[in-house]
């Protein structure tokens, strides 16, 4: 089982090629593209973290951008209002997001499916409302600008988009590796078991509530890391990145790329960031193109691009749910998204 999950050898080649591309090409690129790649990496971390919930545990969260935003706001408030140092800001951001998801987790871990979706949606909107209306702290609609650049704040000897890119890349690799370890651990397999058949997992003696809770907090912690990077990348925060649109865009990144895989959301994030930025330069009607891409993906690859072909090689879609093999990916995304 573990050998199969590690994937066939070609997958390794594609991943290696991807990593080599991300390491080698940036010095040859225009700084604008380096910026876009950085943005992709940040959203890739965020999308992967959502996938722990959505793809692996089967919990569709529509408030994930809220956690990300809270971490970003924590960095902004600490670095501007309190003039805190770099490590204090990083720790503050990650802690704020993680503690918040630990608190929210208590509220949401006992519900599933559409109820989970509704409660996380509501919590996300509460965070958005706070960002928007808690003006003395968040600056309201104007947001907070003037966050120092990461290079200067951390005292790095290098400056500019390239150095930020490689920092983001290192964090991306570290987060990706940690998440890969997480989903491949016995804990990760238990999450998949819960996704496939929670009643069976319960009867086997697993504490499914605790597993869902830990999964929610872990996803929140990684989302906070992405939030910290986002704050430094932009140099400002504003409530738009906490709202429902942001959360649903994130949701699309995961479903487009392939829920239940960690590579899929990375591609999903890359595809959406590139599509948005490249298309909008070419035509004013770029939203139509984006919409068409979503529709085609849902029709042609309902389990996401990275899961293309798996349905045919794996279990047939009509198989009774109880008989689905534990490794069958993407089902949660398909059924619940």
């Amino acid at each position, binding site marked *: 089982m573990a050998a199969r999950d590690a994937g066939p050898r070609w997958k390794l080649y*594609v991943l290696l090629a991807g990593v080599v591309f991300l390491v080698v090409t940036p010095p040859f690129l225009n700084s604008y593209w380096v*910026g876009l790649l950085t943005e992709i990496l940040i959203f890739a971390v965020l999308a992967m973290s959502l996938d722990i919930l959505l793809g692996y545990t089967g919990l569709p969260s529509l408030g994930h951008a809220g956690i990300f935003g809270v971490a970003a706001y924590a960095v902004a408030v600490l670095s501007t209002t309190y003039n805190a140092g770099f490590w204090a800001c990083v720790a503050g951001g990650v802690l704020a997001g993680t503690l918040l998801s630990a608190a929210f987790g208590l509220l949401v871990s006992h519900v599933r499916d559409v109820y989970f979706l509704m409660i996380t949606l509501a919590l996300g909107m509460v965070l958005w409302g706070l960002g928007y209306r808690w003006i003395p702290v968040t600056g309201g*609609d*104007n947001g907070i600008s003037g966050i120092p650049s990461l290079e200067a704040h951390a005292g790095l000897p290098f400056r500019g988009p390239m150095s930020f890119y490689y920092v983001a890349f290192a964090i991306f690799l570290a987060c990706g590796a940690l998440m890969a370890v997480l989903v491949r651990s016995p804990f990760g397999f238990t999450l998949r078991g819960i996704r496939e058949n929670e009643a069976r997992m319960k009867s086997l003696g697993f504490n499914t509530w605790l597993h869902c809770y830990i999964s929610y907090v872990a996803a929140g912690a990684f989302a906070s890391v992405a939030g910290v990077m986002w704050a430094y990348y932009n140099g400002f925060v*504003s409530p738009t990145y906490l709202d429902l649109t942001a959360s649903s865009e994130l949701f699309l990144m995961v479903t487009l790329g392939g829920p239940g895989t960690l590579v899929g959301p990375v591609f999903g994030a890359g595809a959406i960031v590139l599509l948005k930025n490249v298309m909008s330069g070419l035509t004013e009607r770029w939203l139509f193109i984006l919409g068409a891409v979503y529709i085609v993906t849902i029709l042609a690859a309902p389990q996401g691009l990275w899961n*293309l072909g798996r349905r045919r090689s794996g279990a047939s879609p009509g198989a009774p749910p109880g008989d689905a093999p534990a490794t069958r990916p993407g089902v949660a995304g398909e059924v619940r998204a």
Partner: protein
Amino acid sequence: MTWPMRRWRSASAWLAIVLLVVGGTLALGQGSPDRGPIRIGFLTPLSGGLAQNGRDILNGFLLYLEEIGYTAAGRRIELIVEDDEGIPAVGLTKARKLVERDRVHLMAGTLLSSSGYALAPYIDAMKIPMVYPVVSADDLTQRRRSPWIVRTGWTGSQPNHPFGEYAYHTLKLRRVATIALDYAFGWESVGGFQRTFEAEGGTVVQKLWTPVSVHDFAPYLAQVDRDVDAVYALFLGRNALQFMRQYQEYGLKGKVMLIGAGTTTDEHVLPAMGDEAVGVITALHYSGALDTPDNRKFAAAYRAKYKKVPSYYAESMYAGGRWAVAAIEAAGGNVEDAAGLLAAFRRVKPTGLPRGPVELDEYGNPIESIYIRKVERVNGELQNTVIETFPRVSQFWKFDPAAYLKQPLYSRRYAPVRAN
């Protein structure tokens, strides 16, 4: 074990797309011919809730560029338009594209204050002059000045300072209730009005704030103190239409005079209003009905091209474009010298703007005429008839700039409602 060819294909297809896109733009980005076209980057919301206002801004700019045949100082002008969706982070990404990939010499645009604040540090870091035709957040040219931003529009409080005095002396108002959108633009406009109105002896007895996403004004209108001389309202877009209708439905129209900020009756919503808007008095630095040769010419050309009345948004970038071209010409077309271009912006006094004469103060905000306008029906169409003009109004009104800047920024809490 067989290799699933489909996955191979999808993966390599993605890789190919990424490489193609990246390689293609690399090739495009190469080479910069000397004395080529002047590249101007333009940001505005073209999708989302503010798309219509954003479109108006762009229309005004296009109208002017066509007028001059896309040339300035003998060089061709190349305009690159990007949609910022009204989202600050998207605006920043698009600004990065314009500066770092398209290598623009000059930028213009954006609508929301939040976008304006978000872009400022980046613009200062890249040292590219940027024209803000609409963003009205006071502090961009006051307490948080940004050297590379040239505001050709206004500050939210600017028209409201003279309006407060006008309301007291000419309209003879003594007690006013305000109702406005709950964000910086609302606070700054109301704050400016309250300051001068109360300095003259009037009292703002009540300040109501509605969320920007407000759908129903009933709970707010029910709270309005009936014992006031006038209600001051600040809305825009859909909110403004809804507010006007409900103000009438609640029987307030005809009983309590309605005044407000310029956007409440701006031409971007005025044609969609009915008789409920007639008689409303507002203040702004522009009116589509402004009766000067320059504005008549502009309004006729705008109407011929876009089949609608120019709004203040439309005028903003027609004027901004004129200003930019005047600066480019004053700099001898040498836009590669960004510092020289910026200095030219501060130096020139563009003429022939629809709104009338303007010049920049030393803080980078225009000194311009403020018009008190009254909605009237003329030839079956609603218009903002100018009933009073305050010439040469600066963002500091009659106050001393240094003393003014020591005061806090107008906000939800400042200035507070005094106990009456």
